[in-house]
């Protein structure tokens, strides 16, 4: 090889290597200039949170002249699946909405990807606005387990599950609104006798597993929840609560209270089937409330699951500040604005559950009831979180489990065995 040619090859390779290294490396690590707030969240623009946060952005711009807000609307799954990679890069946002729980915010906190917000929580007084049961999901210990330790997120709304029912269908079929577990089962049987499948359901997504968890909660107490969610005790999927839940769920499928055909349905399908008036009952979260208010063409109401002191629910998603955020002070200012009464009132009047609204400012009677119920549950320490939180990937395990119960492809005992195996594999070994 001639010298000239070898020089060309070496130069080309050096250039190519430089390009390769540049493409593999980070995109610069400049610190923030205090002029841009990079904000990500995944709430729909028409949802209570979307509306309230748009207002918060407007207010932030007013109080921070010259600061640009770079808002990016993300999808829940998008953030859920890429958060650790994004937050580990230099492109992390300054403030981001993130799902709460051990396997989500807890995992990020444990990995050192989130800023400890404890000093700001005290400085701004956010802790005084939030009830203790709501703050459970804000604090994580060094193992990433919620309930104690430093603050890694701030929720500014709450959520819980309830039984939505179609008043018109109840009246038309002469079914009484149940107040006890027995009356609830009797109502299901009464609808079935009229040829109506009573419960709207979706096995491919969260609704079916929430029925299962709620059934377990009717036989559970706070210690049971703490053992399951916070690893404060032995978790036995063959205990009385889980056994009752799996057997009752399978029994309800056999009796036709839950449709076998719901095994492949998605949450949206279940919600829409309730909205269309096909099913008289749908057990799901307060996140449906605003939509039902707008779209239901019939009289409807809601009540808490009869005979249960515990229900699924928690503080809402968290505002988190990534460790690598460049403009943390702006992020704190923004979170503080979302906690102010004006924004909280907007949240409350649009079907959301604010944590710091003025009771007199909520004018809509339905919203008032929704918020009052949440406060009641929260004050009675009745929020039992969600079944998929304890271990990473448990959501998929639960989907698979309830699909087996719905299709009858496994017995309740086998399903509980599988859940035990998946839980034990993912729970911290201590």
């Amino acid at each position, binding site marked *: 090889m001639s010298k000239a040619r070898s020089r060309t090859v070496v130069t080309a390779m050096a250039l190519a290597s430089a390009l390769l290294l540049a493409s593999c490396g980070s995109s610069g690590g400049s610190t923030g200039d205090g002029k841009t707030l990079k904000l990500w969240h995944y709430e729909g623009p028409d949802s209570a949170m979307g509306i309230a946060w748009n207002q918060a952005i407007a207010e932030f711009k007013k109080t921070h002249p010259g600061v640009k807000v770079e808002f990016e609307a993300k999808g829940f799954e998008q953030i859920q699946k890429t958060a650790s990679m994004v937050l580990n890069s230099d492109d992390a946002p300054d403030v981001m909405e993130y799902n709460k729980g051990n396997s989500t915010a807890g995992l990020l906190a444990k990995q050192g990807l989130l800023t400890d917000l404890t000093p700001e929580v005290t400085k701004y007084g956010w802790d005084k606005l939030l009830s203790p049961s709501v703050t459970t999901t804000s604090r994580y210990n060094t193992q990433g387990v919620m309930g104690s330790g430093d603050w890694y997120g701030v929720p500014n709304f709450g959520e819980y599950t309830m039984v939505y029912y179609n008043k018109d269908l109840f009246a038309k079929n002469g079914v009484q609104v149940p107040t006890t577990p027995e009356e609830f089962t009797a109502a299901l049987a009464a609808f079935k006798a009229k040829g109506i499948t009573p419960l709207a359901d979706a096995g491919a997504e969260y609704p079916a597993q929430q029925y299962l968890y709620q059934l377990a909660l009717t036989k559970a107490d706070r210690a049971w929840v703490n053992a399951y969610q916070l690893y404060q005790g032995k978790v036995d999927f063959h205990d009385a609560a889980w056994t009752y839940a799996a057997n009752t769920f399978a029994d309800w499928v056999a009796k036709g209270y839950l449709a*076998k055909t719901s*095994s492949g349905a998605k949450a949206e399908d279940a919600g829409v089937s309730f909205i269309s008036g096909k099913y008289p009952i749908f057990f799901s979260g307060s996140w449906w409330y605003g939509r039902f208010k707008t779209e239901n063409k019939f009289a409807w109401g809601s009540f808490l699951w009869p005979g249960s002191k515990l229900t699924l629910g928690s503080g809402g998603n968290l505002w988190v500040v990534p460790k690598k955020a460049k403009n943390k002070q702006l992020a704190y200012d923004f979170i503080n604005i979302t906690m102010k009464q004006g924004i909280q009132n907007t949240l409350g009047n649009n079907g959301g559950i604010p944590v710091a609204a003025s009771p007199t400012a909520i004018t809509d009677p339905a919203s008032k009831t929704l918020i009052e119920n949440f406060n009641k549950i929260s004050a009675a320490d009745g929020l039992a979180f969600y079944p998929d939180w304890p271990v990473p*990937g448990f959501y998929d395990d639960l989907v698979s489990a309830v699909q087996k119960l719905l*299709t009858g492809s496994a017995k309740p005992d086998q399903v509980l065995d599988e859940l035990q195996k998946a839980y034990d594999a993912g729970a911290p070994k201590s």
Partner: protein
Amino acid sequence: MTARRHQPANTYPLYLIPGAVAFLAVIVYPFALNVYYSFTNWQGVGSPSWAGLANYRQLMKDSQFWQSFQHSLAMVVAMAVVPTVIGLVVAAALFDFVAKHFGSKLAAVLRACFYLPQVLPITVAGIVWSWILAPENGSLNELLKAVGLGGLRQDWLGDPHFALYSVMAVMVWVQLGFPVVIFMSGLQRVDPALHEAAELDGTSWWQRFWHVTLPQLRPEIYVVMLWCTIAALKVFGAVYVLTKGGPADATDVPSYFSFATFFEKTQVGYGSAIATVMTVLILALTVVGLSFQTRAEDAR
């Protein structure tokens, strides 16, 4: 002393550099990292801890992985075997019958129609099929009801007894266009005299297809089978959109299993082991397939 003839410098290797760099950056480097992570326990950030062969030992006795691998074999049937067989018949029919009797334009239009699913993004096709196959108000069930076959209605994607077959049927629909196009172009390469001679000998269409068309299309069949088998082994998009591996793992495939292990369970080490095993299997299959094809072509 004789004058040395000036030989032009061979500059070809220079042109290979960009491709080689891209190959290193996009294929070799990530794959090497993936193999490295497969020997560790890692949650995706922080420091991985060395685990040796633990992930592979776990994989060997993981019934969910082997079940997902069985589903992959079903996908090979749906994405390679069935489309190749149907594709041969369709291509021969379009080339030999439709083009002759109704004109080549109609044959070209029909070929494009068969190819259309290949152009559609799999997410779009998947969503549309999930509507068609929905248990309530799905078009297929409504159609069955309308023609008096209401008793055959099923929860096509939600019942573990039907879900895998439903996904397979969708994949046949997706894949069919590829062999049709390849085989039709292959047929244009075949000497028409062969068909004409067979026709003069009084053979039936089927005899001509079996004794002339099929042997002539052997190279294309190898290419299509190999290509589609590889596509089947790494199928992901359709499963993700249609069933997410459910119901009750009935449609789980290794690529989705690996994805869920990576991103849902954040077990990056184990997910990497699954991906590595898949890659090795696909590479082995490719090498065997290619050598088989080369031997068959050399024997011609």
